[in-house]
């Protein structure tokens, strides 16, 4: 490869043509594997600080666990780079003849109708009854966090994944939904004209969020992607600080108690209680199922196609008859109202909200769920939200709880370098990245042509 002693004798062109060692993929892969090894040694090693911030690092280095992990990484890299031939060729040989169970199901899936329905039914059954087998801790995580953030992420996906508008303040709508629930159930210091049941609050929260979304969107939609992002950031801060400082209205940081989900039909009453998480889970599962079903329909409708066109090129979209302002507003409003439903669900589940439930970090986290899973792809976003909410809770058993988001950050960095399209990317997003790599377009967060409106 490159030889440092020779470079002095090379012409400028030859020097420039030389591929630097750090530009070679194999060294980049080594870097990635070593970082992964280091990360794993930290996750699995000694935790805590003991009044010395380097305590854990020093301990892990001195007891050799770092060396073991790095050695393992080096070994994997060396085998992959220099001795992979026997493995891949034999794997290929096996692959030709092997009938994997998943492959067999996959083949039947595409040919046999009953297999398709069977798999779907089995999957649905696991979704519905599976969590009964979980520990109470995980049930709570599932209901309080995963299910709620799934809803928020699916809503944000409409705004950023489909319409291509970068929204950094999405949790503002979540807060508006939650405070709507608190207001209409009579939990806030200010009393509503009529106290309503939590379920009846949902349409009101949706309408409130629609209005808030349109109010925010109407004056700002002419802005380019990055300016819009700052505006949404500001909007979030306004909502958050209003919730925090208007203590007489919102309860501020000390918070308010909100009634939990309950049904009162006069002759029959039912209350979701804190003892059992499952009824909450089933309720939220129903919400998610309905929202996801509607959104899948939406994606392939005329509205979905208009969003795609706007993301690709606004001028061209307008010239084919797409009302760009209307559809962008619509995306904003639909996303906002989904987030609002999640807010109602959150308040009515946890039974208590304060302003600190709606900090800016959450907006950023939800954005990372969407990007991690795959912008614009509903399965991707569902997976991204579920996985990234689960991971910090899972890490609780292994690392210092204060460090959990650090590992989340590391994972996001690695992910964006090696798989920027997300875990389960949408077909179109995949195309964008391929074309960006081939130099025939850009692939920033908000799509190729978001800034081209004059």
């Amino acid at each position: 490869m490159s030889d440092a002693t020779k470079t002095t004798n090379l012409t400028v062109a030859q020097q420039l043509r030389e591929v630097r060692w750090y530009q070679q993929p194999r060294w980049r892969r080594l870097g990635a594997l070593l970082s992964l090894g280091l990360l794993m040694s930290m996750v699995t090693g000694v935790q805590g600080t003991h009044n010395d911030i380097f305590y854990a690092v020093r301990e892990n280095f001195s007891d050799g666990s770092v060396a073991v992990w790095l050695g393992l990484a080096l070994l994997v890299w060396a085998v992959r780079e220099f001795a992979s031939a026997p493995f891949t060729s034999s794997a290929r040989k096996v692959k030709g003849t092997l009938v994997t169970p998943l492959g067999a199901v996959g083949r039947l899936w595409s040919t046999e109708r009953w297999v398709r329905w069977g798999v779907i039914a089995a999957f649905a059954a696991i979704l519905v009854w599976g969590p009964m087998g979980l520990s109470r801790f995980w049930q709570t995580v599932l209901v309080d966090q995963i299910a709620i953030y799934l809803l928020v992420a699916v809503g944000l996906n409409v705004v950023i994944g489909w319409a291509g508008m970068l929204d950094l303040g999405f949790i503002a709508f979540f807060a508006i939904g939650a405070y709507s629930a608190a207001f209409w159930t009579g939990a806030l210091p200010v009393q509503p004209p009529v106290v309503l049941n939590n379920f009846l609050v949902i349409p009101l929260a949706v309408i409130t969020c629609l209005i808030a979304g349109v109010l925010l969107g109407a004056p700002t939609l002419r802005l380019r992607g990055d300016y819009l992002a700052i505006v949404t950031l500001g909007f979030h801060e306004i909502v958050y600080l209003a919730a925090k400082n208007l203590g007489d209205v919102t309860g501020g940081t000390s918070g308010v108690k909100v009634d939990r989900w309950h049904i009162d039909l006069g002759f029959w009453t039912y209350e979701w209680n804190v003892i059992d998480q499952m009824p909450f889970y089933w309720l939220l599962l129903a919400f998610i199922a309905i929202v996801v079903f509607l959104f899948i329909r939406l994606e392939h409708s005329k509205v979905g196609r208009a969003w795609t066109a706007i993301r690709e090129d606004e001028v061209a979209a307008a010239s084919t008859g797409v009302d760009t302002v209307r559809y962008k507003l619509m995306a904003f409003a639909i996303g906002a109202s989904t987030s609002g439903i999640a807010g109602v669900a959150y308040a009515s589940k946890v039974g208590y909200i304060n302003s600190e439930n709606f900090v800016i970090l959450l907006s950023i986290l939800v954005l990372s769920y969407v990007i991690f899973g795959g912008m614009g792809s509903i399965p991707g976003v569902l997976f991204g939200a579920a996985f990234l909410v689960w991971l910090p809770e899972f890490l609780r058993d292994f690392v210092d709880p204060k460090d959990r988001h650090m590992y989340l950050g590391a994972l996001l960095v690695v992910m964006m370098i090696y798989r920027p399209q997300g875990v389960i990317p949408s077909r179109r997003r995949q195309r964008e990245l391929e074309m960006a790599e081939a130099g025939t377009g850009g692939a920033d967060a908000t799509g190729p042509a978001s800034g081209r409106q004059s």
Partner: protein
Amino acid sequence: MSGAADLTKETEQTGERTDTPMLELRDLRVFYGAIEALKGINVKVYEGEVVALLGANGAGKSTTLRTASGMLSPRDGQVLFHGERIDGIKSHDLVRFGIGHVPEGRRVFPRMTVRENLEMGAYRFKAPDPDDMDRVFTLFPRLSERRTQLGGTLSGGEQQMLAIGRALMGKPELLLLDEPSMGLAPLIVRQIFDILEEINKQGTTVLLVEQNASQALQLADRGYVLETGSVAMADEASALLADPRVRAAYLGEGAA
């Protein structure tokens, strides 16, 4: 297609017609901030015609077309379509009136396939008309070969064809084209202008903005020459083509 029978009505030799033009720009004044880009422009496009707007860079050609297509609003003056005022109507709504617009710089959807691009062109309808799709593929055989290719990976000429094809999918009565020859090889420009002629013969009225005066005037029935925001000359295309001033300014002496 309505009233296709009398589309071929010849323009009178005197140049003045008394019937209502399909598109009329009346005393159009457009400003960019304080700068007056159009200083009272009058343009008439009759049904079945091809009209070319010519002029140097900055003469106001594109501004005129963008005003006609609803992307800009005039400060003064009117845009009339079949005698009805349409200025102030947004470009996406004008599509429903049967005004197709091929924007400057082609502007295809880069991540959609050729077919998807064409389907977007028929966005104002419930579903794309398969006959229109066939028509576009017949007019542009090169697009037909590249149905599943992504718009952004096409060559410049193919993208221009796609942009025109996409506009045709909206069944326009009037097609507005902004510099269809921009940045294209002479051979491709020839092909595109031949196809525009064919489209016009099939009954679509065309208003185009062009730098390439010789190609445009060979295709057009009439032409307008713009200079710094006003109409400097308006005449039959053949007369303009023969005019020594036009030849000097836009064709280069002796070239044709």
